[in-house]
């Protein structure tokens, strides 16, 4: 068994209103003038666990991301990294 650590980012789908992102945009505008400002707000997760190999670890991360971390109706997830780590 090896130990893995996965980092996942969850964002709103491009065609769904990102209300927190809009609010952040207004807040940034009130502090500094920036051209072409766009903001997105999402969540960052870190999950570490033991698995036989990278393939199996990826399967687990995908399942966790799909079942718990994101709601596919409105969100997408991206596995930023999945690395083997020391125990």
């Amino acid at each position, binding site marked *: 068994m090896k130990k893995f650590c996965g980092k996942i980012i969850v964002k709103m789908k491009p065609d*769904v*209103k990102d*209300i*927190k992102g809009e609010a952040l945009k207004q807040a940034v505008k009130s502090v500094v003038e920036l051209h072409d400002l766009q903001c997105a707000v999402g969540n960052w997760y870190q999950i570490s666990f033991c698995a036989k190999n990278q393939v199996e670890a990826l399967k687990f991360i995908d399942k966790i991301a799909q*079942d*718990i971390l994101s*709601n596919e*109706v*409105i969100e997408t997830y991206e596995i930023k990294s999945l690395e083997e780590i020391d125990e």
Partner: protein
Amino acid sequence: MSKLKVGIIVFLGTNCEYDTKRACDFLGWNSEFVWQNDKIQKKYDLIILPGGFSYGDYISSGRIAKLSPAVKSLPIGKTMILGICNGFQTLCESKLLPGALIDNKNIDFISKVTEINFQNELISLPLAHHQGNYTCKNIDKSQILMTYQNNENGSDFAIAGIYDKKNKIIGMMPHPERAMYEELGLTDGRKVFKFIQNEI
């Protein structure tokens, strides 16, 4: 006519279960609480998922509640299921109802008694939510049960509640259980429960 048997699911963080029970008592219905970790085993005429902040709304409203044994054992299609506010969010998260509830368009909590279009009339029901903004791709218009007269939270088509008649599942953001009593000057919640009773 025998008394209606109602199961009210309670999660850690639910806070409308007593209001819901009081409403059932008022209507002469027999209600009892079902704990989140228990599988639903008794036969009920109606199962209610009440409002609140189940699991602290961690990750997202209803996201963790949907994984509970109680929700996983809901008798779909056999028993009428009603989700109110957080309950509606949980039903959408579980894919038992289409669409999803996201943050209100003004990003704040909305608490007010407001006008709702229901069964061809305007009724007054309280709203109290942070994520009540209903969004859905390809909404089936026949499933729209109630809409906001003033669309305070920015929902698609001002949808406040939907009814999947085939699977006997209703979800709504307004709180009918808080609008049952003359003492509070709000009684239109009775109309909502009467409708549900007729559908059972």
